C-alpha cells in the first residue's frame, strides 16, 4: 500500500544474545555437576529444575497470555501417571516414558481447553482446579493405577544402577528446565509471542489486529500442559513413587504461584529467581516446623509490599536490565 519510507535506512529489530549465552553456559556447567556433587544434592537439584519448568509454564499462561490456572496439578499428576503407566504396564524405559507423560498431559490439556475456555477469569481458575480434583478422584478409585495406594517404579528400576538412575533423572530435569526456558523465550520473541501478549492485553483489540485469540490461547495451554506433564513425570521419577492425593494436590499450584510471584511474573527470569529463592528458604527453614510455612507467607507479603513486580521485576526496573528481553526494540540502521 505504501512506498518504502526511505530506501537508504532499514528498520531493524534488535536481537540480544545475552539470554542464549546464559542458557548455553548454564547447560555446560550444570551438565557436569553430577561429577562434583553427591546424590542428595542431585535429588534437590532435580526438584529445583522441575520447579523452574513448572513455573515457566504457569508464567507463560498467567504472565504472558493472561489466564490464571490453579489446576496445574492436573497435568503434574497426569504426566506422572502417564509415565508410570507406560513404564509399568508396557515395559517402556522409564526415562523415555517421561516424554509420553508430557504428551498424554498435552492431549488431555487440548480436550480440557475445549471446556475450560468457555470460562473466564476467576471461573476459569476454579474450572482448572475442578478438573484436577476430577482426575484425583478418578485415579484414587481406579485399581489399574494402584488406587489409593499409588504406583511404585521399584520393579522396573531394579536393574538400573543407582548412579545411572540419579544422573539420568538429573539430566532430564536439567534439559527440561533449560529447554522450556529457551523454548518459551524464543516463542515470545517470535511473531507468535506478539500474538500471545496481545491476548493478555486486550482480546478485542487482538482480534481486530488479525490475531486468532482462541487458537493462540489453545496452543499456549497445550504447550503449558506438555511442559507441566513432563515436569510431573520427572518429579515422580525422582521419588519413584506416585500417589493421587499428593500428585493432584492444589499445593502444587500454590507453590508454583508463590515461586512466580516472588520471582517476577511476566518475565522469563522471574520463575528461575523464584525457584532459587523458594528452595533456599526451604532448605534453611525446614527444621523449624510450622515456622517455615509462616515465613513463606511473610516473604510473600513483604514481596508484594516492597516489590509488587517480584524480585526480578524490581531489579529489572531499577537497573533497566533484562537477561531475556521479550520486548522487541526497533531502530533504524544507517546504510553501511
Amino acid at each position, binding site marked *: 500500500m505504501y512506498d518504502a*519510507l526511505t530506501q537508504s535506512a532499514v528498520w531493524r529489530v534488535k536481537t540480544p544474545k545475552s539470554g542464549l549465552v546464559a542458557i548455553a553456559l548454564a547447560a555446560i556447567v550444570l551438565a557436569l555437576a553430577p561429577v562434583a556433587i553427591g546424590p542428595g544434592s542431585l535429588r534437590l537439584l532435580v526438584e529445583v529444575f522441575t520447579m523452574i519448568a513448572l513455573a515457566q509454564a504457569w508464567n507463560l499462561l498467567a504472565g504472558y497470555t493472561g489466564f490464571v490456572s490453579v489446576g496445574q496439578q492436573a497435568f503434574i499428576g497426569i504426566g506422572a501417571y502417564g509415565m508410570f503407566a507406560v513404564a509399568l504396564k508396557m515395559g517402556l524405559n522409564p526415562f523415555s516414558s517421561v516424554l509420553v507423560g508430557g504428551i498424554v498431559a498435552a492431549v488431555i490439556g487440548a480436550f480440557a481447553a475445549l471446556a475450560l475456555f468457555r470460562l473466564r477469569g476467576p471461573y476459569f481458575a476454579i474450572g482448572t482446579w475442578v478438573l484436577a480434583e476430577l482426575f484425583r478422584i478418578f485415579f484414587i478409585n481406579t485399581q489399574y493405577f494402584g488406587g489409593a495406594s499409588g504406583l511404585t517404579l521399584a520393579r522396573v528400576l531394579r536393574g538400573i544402577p543407582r548412579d545411572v538412575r540419579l544422573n539420568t533423572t538429573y539430566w532430564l530435569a536439567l534439559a527440561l528446565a533449560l529447554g522450556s526456558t529457551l523454548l518459551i523465550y524464543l516463542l515470545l520473541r517470535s511473531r507468535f509471542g506478539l500474538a500471545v501478549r496481545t491476548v493478555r492485553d486486550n482480546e478485542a483489540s487482538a482480534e*481486530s489486529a488479525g490475531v486468532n485469540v482462541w487458537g493462540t490461547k489453545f496452543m499456549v495451554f497445550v504447550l503449558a500442559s506438555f511442559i507441566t506433564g513432563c515436569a510431573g513425570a520427572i518429579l515422580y521419577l525422582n521419588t519413584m513413587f506416585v500417589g493421587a492425593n499428593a500428585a493432584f494436590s492444589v499445593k502444587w499450584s500454590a507453590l508454583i504461584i508463590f515461586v512466580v510471584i516472588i520471582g517476577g511474573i511476566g518475565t522469563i527470569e522471574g520463575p528461575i529467581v523464584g525457584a532459587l529463592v523458594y528452595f533456599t528458604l526451604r532448605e534453611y527453614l525446614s527444621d523449624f516446623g510450622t515456622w517455615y510455612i509462616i515465613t513463606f507467607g511473610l516473604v510473600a507479603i513483604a514481596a508484594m509490599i516492597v516489590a509488587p513486580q517480584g524480585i526480578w521485576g524490581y531489579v529489572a526496573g531499577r537497573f533497566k536490565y533484562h537477561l531475556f528481553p521479550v520486548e522487541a*526494540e526497533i531502530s533504524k540502521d544507517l546504510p553501511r
Partner: protein
Amino acid sequence: MLELKNLTKAYGALRVVDDMTLEIAQGETLGIIGPNGAGKTSLFSVIAGQVAADSGEIRFCGQDVTRRPPFERCKAGLGRTFQVPRPFHGMTVFESAHVAASFGAGLSGQAASDFAAQAVERTGLLRHLNEPCSSLTLLDRKRMELTRALATNPKMLLLDEIGGGLTDHEIHELIDILNQIRDSGVSIVWIEHIVHALTSFVDRLIVINFGRKIADGNPKEVMALPEVHEIYMGVDIDDAA
C-alpha cells in the same frame, strides 16, 4: 465492497441495529452521524464481528462474512478502531503495529517491521516507537487505534470517533492523513460527532436513529433534511454535536 442486507441486532426489546441495508463502494468515504445511543458503534461491532448479528447478511469483497470471527474479517481487509481506545498496555507502539502487520496484513520478517514502522510514522507516533502503549496520552492512544488498523493493510477502515477531543488543528492533520489513506484506494467509514469535519471529508453521509437508517446521500442534502434537524431538535447542528 461492503454490503449489508437487512442486518438486525437486538438486546431484548432494544434493537440497536434494525433492518439495516447499506452498500459501500470501493474507495468511497461514508460518514455516519446520529444521536448518542443510536446504534452507530453497535453497527461497527456487528460489521467487524465483535458482536454477532441476529439476522441479515454481511458481504465483504463478495464473500459472506456474517458468521466469520473478527480476526478473519480483519485479515479479509476490514480494519476498525475502537471509540474508547483499547491499547496493548504491556506492549510498545512498534510491537502493537507489528502484530497487526504480521497477522492482519499477513507480512513477515523485514516486510512486517517496515510496514509497521510506516504505519506508526503516518499517524505521527514515530517518536514513541519503542515506548509502552500504557505511557501514551489519550490523544496518542486514539492515534494508536488508527495505527493498528492501518498496519493491518485494510481495504476498508471503520473509524469510531477518532476525532473526538481533537483541536481544529489536529483535526486538519487527521483529515490530511485520511485523505492520503483514501487516495491509496481504501474505503473509509467514519462515525463522528464533529459534523463539519465529517462533511468536509466524506462523499456520502447517513443518519442513524434507533438503529435505523433515516437518511442517506450527499452530505449537504442530508444535513438539510427536516428529519435530521428534528433529531438535533432545531439546534445548530455543530453545537448539538
